[in-house]
């Protein structure tokens, strides 16, 4: 409750603003325990990038095993130590790799790294606020995330390994330390880390929602908000409603594991001995988990959608097509995300009638998704396109979202799911539609807003190299997976050479692994570009992309408080690009209609 004593401080308030540029802050206040949303955003970004490299590296390790099942990996011994025995990857460690790859990518990179970075950075800048509603809560959000990260990172180095029951941590596997090594202290740390992670996300989300609702500048009505803000806002609402349920599930699992309760355990025999647990239901966990787990994929993809909408409109030099439809479809996705969770559970023996209800609701999601895709394509259509790196990633996002989304329609059918469940078809589907697509959205955001973050430009040539290598690699990795998935190739199998049916896919698996290594290597181009450009990049101007939104009206490197003087007033929506009759091909939101009489539409004459 750091800032509860506020309402009498009104007079003090203005004094603070004036002292804005020379208040004495030491290094720790300025860069470590900062209350400035921009610094916190960068902290989330750096952590996200770090985690992305760890998560990516883990995937390369298990791709080595899958691509070359007969090979010996003695060269990995210096890194992995006891996990490589005589050159063979330990099977339980393989499961741990898969689990940690999923956990890290879904939660630490694409939730905290994506929402944490861009919601924090863009919400105050684009709505015209000096900072988040509570800077203290915002700082707390990052530091709790940091502690959660440390615990999760530390669990990688346990002698029994990190959690290994899959990122979905289904009990009884995850609940019984006797089941696999990874369900020992690795799983305990996973649960503690995730519980902290949820607290961090809730603190962040509460701030995002409050800020968007309450702190918009003069003239910034909800229908003048950039689509980025709408996406972050609705993402935060989804998180606020979904994450507490995961917290409940995690808490019950903690009790089952450490306090001897039986919420998810019943009638289990280990080596012929019955456990004392009776009366639990493992399906109950799946319901609780997927009630978060499904909205979670929208928590991952919606911010990317928002970033892409903004970048596509700016770089097509055209108003976004169907602004209201874009908001409406985000609303549709938000609502639907909560009523489709059981499509992950079609094969748990659920009532087939219930299955068809969830199938119906699932397929409806295709409608808002298609609206969005149509609108992006219609925005690009006949646009005066500028192929910046950010724009390339935005277009790449749309491509991946279409390719991955189409298989969603196939997987959503409860009958087809019986064949495809837990095969590489599912892996291909969700990696394209939420994994790679969300990554592309994040890259698109980094390339586009880098100048505002660091006052310098990223190198465009390296950006192109990064884009094409990543884009091609992603398709080379995931397209063949559809094929082996339809053939029944199961996920999470350490060794598949023992099965006659799957032996024929050896070459294809090697191919996928090579493509994955290529794709991972390409990320080092980005890393170099990112670090180099922070220090040596070309200096940015205030508005390098000729964009309309408010963040480009701030100085090149905005201080705490964002605008040195008054917060600008907003007069128009953010998508007045290439307006007929206008002097330039963009009109920032801060330009009143009285100054643009030549381009005003008949309906806008009243505002002059």
């Amino acid at each position: 409750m750091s800032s509860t004593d506020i309402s009498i401080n009104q007079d003090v308030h203005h004094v603070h603003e004036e002292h804005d540029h020379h208040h004495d802050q030491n290094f720790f206040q300025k860069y470590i325990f900062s209350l400035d949303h921009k610094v916190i955003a960068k902290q989330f970004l750096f952590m996200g990038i770090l985690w992305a490299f760890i998560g990516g590296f883990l995937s390369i390790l298990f791709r080595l095993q899958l691509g070359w099942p007969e090979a010996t990996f003695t060269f990995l011994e210096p890194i992995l130590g006891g996990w490589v025995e005589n050159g063979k990857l330990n099977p339980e460690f393989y499961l741990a790799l898969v689990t940690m790859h999923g956990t890290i990518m879904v939660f630490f990179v694409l939730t905290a790294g994506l929402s944490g970075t861009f919601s924090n950075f863009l919400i105050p800048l684009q709505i015209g606020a000096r900072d988040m509603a509570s800077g203290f809560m915002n700082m707390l959000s990052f530091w709790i995330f940091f502690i959660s990260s440390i615990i999760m990172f530390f669990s990688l180095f346990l002698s029994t390994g990190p959690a290994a029951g899959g990122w979905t941590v289904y009990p009884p596997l995850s609940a019984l330390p006797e089941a696999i090594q990874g369900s020992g202290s690795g799983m305990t740390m996973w649960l503690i880390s995730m519980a902290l992670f949820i607290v961090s996300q809730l603190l962040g989300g509460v701030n995002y929602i409050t800020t968007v609702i309450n702190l918009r500048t003069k003239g910034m009505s909800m229908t003048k908000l950039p689509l980025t803000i709408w996406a972050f806002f609705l993402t935060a609402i989804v998180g606020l409603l979904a994450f507490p349920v995961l917290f409940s599930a995690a808490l019950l699992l903690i009790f089952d594991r450490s306090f001897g309760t039986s919420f998810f355990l019943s009638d289990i025999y280990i080596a012929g001995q019955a456990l004392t647990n009776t009366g639990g239901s493992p399906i109950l966990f799946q319901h609780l988990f997927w009630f978060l787990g499904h909205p979670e994929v929208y928590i991952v993809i919606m911010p990317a959608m928002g970033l892409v909408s903004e970048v596509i409109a700016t770089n097509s030099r055209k108003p976004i097509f169907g602004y209201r439809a874009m908001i409406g479809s985000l609303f549709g996705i938000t609502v639907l995300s909560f009523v489709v969770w059981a499509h992950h559970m079609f094969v748990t023996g659920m009532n087939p009638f219930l299955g068809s209800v969830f199938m119906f609701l699932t397929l409806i999601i295709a409608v808002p998704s298609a609206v969005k895709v149509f609108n992006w394509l219609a925005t690009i259509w006949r646009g005066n396109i500028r192929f910046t790196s950010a724009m390339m990633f935005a277009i790449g996002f749309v491509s991946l979202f279409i390719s991955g989304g189409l298989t969603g329609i196939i997987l959503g059918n409860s009958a087809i799911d019986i064949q495809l469940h837990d095969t590489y078809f599912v892996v291909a589907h969700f990696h394209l539609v939420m994994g790679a697509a969300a990554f592309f959205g994040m890259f698109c955001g980094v390339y586009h807003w880098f100048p505002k973050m660091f006052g310098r430009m990223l190198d465009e040539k390296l950006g192109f190299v990064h884009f094409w290598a990543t884009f091609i690699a992603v398709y080379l990795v995931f397209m063949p997976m559809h094929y082996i998935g339809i053939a029944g190739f199961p996920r999470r199998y350490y060794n598949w050479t023992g099965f006659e049916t799957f032996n024929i896919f050896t070459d294809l698996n090697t191919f996928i692994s090579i493509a994955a290594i290529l794709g991972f290597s390409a990320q080092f181009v980005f890393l170099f570009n990112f670090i180099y450009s922070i220090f040596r990049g070309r200096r940015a101007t205030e508005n390098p992309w000729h964009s309309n939104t408010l963040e480009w009206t701030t100085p090149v490197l905005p201080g705490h408080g964002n605008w040195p003087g008054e917060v600008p007033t907003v007069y128009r929506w953010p998508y007045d690009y290439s307006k007929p009759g206008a002097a330039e091909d963009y009109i920032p939101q801060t330009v009143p209609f009285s100054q643009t009489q030549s381009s005003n539409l008949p309906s806008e004459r009243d505002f002059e």
Partner: protein
Amino acid sequence: MANFQINDQDSRTGLHPLKFSLWLIIISIIMMFAAFTSAYIVRREEGNWLEFELPTILLVNTIVIVLSSVTMQLAHNAAKNNNLGLLKVLLLLTLGLGTAFLIGQWYGWVDLVQNNIYFGGTGSNPSGSFLYVLTGVHGFHLITGLVFVAIVYFSSLKYKVHSKNMLRIQLCTVYWHFLGGLWVYLYIFLRINH
């Protein structure tokens, strides 16, 4: 402290941003208990469910927490009317009633254990464990509420709670009413599902 103080006038909704945040936090707590209680119903439908009597003391606790809500509201009104002496007494009373509720809940657990309803271990059934979880997690939140009331009490000793500085006690009152309401919901829920 943040460099940029925010006040009611800046806010679009006319509601102080912190108050708005508090409501959002309350929503997330509601979602958590919605998960617990719906898990309870789903699990109960599946059978193998131990039926037992709720400890009678829970009814007494319910009355105590409702009373504490009344004293909290009166404390809020006293602050509004600048009746600072009464404010301190009522805040202390709220603290006392809240603590009494927690002690009562503890005796509820003692009662359960005496009836061989255990949280975990051999012979425990999810029906009992759920009761412990619901009361325990609610109790945890009530402790956070008590800490908040204590903070308001100590700032009232420094004359920082009065009609021109109502934010802190307003937040506290909203949170305290919520915690009381949450318990009343849980009690009715448990009564119906027993």
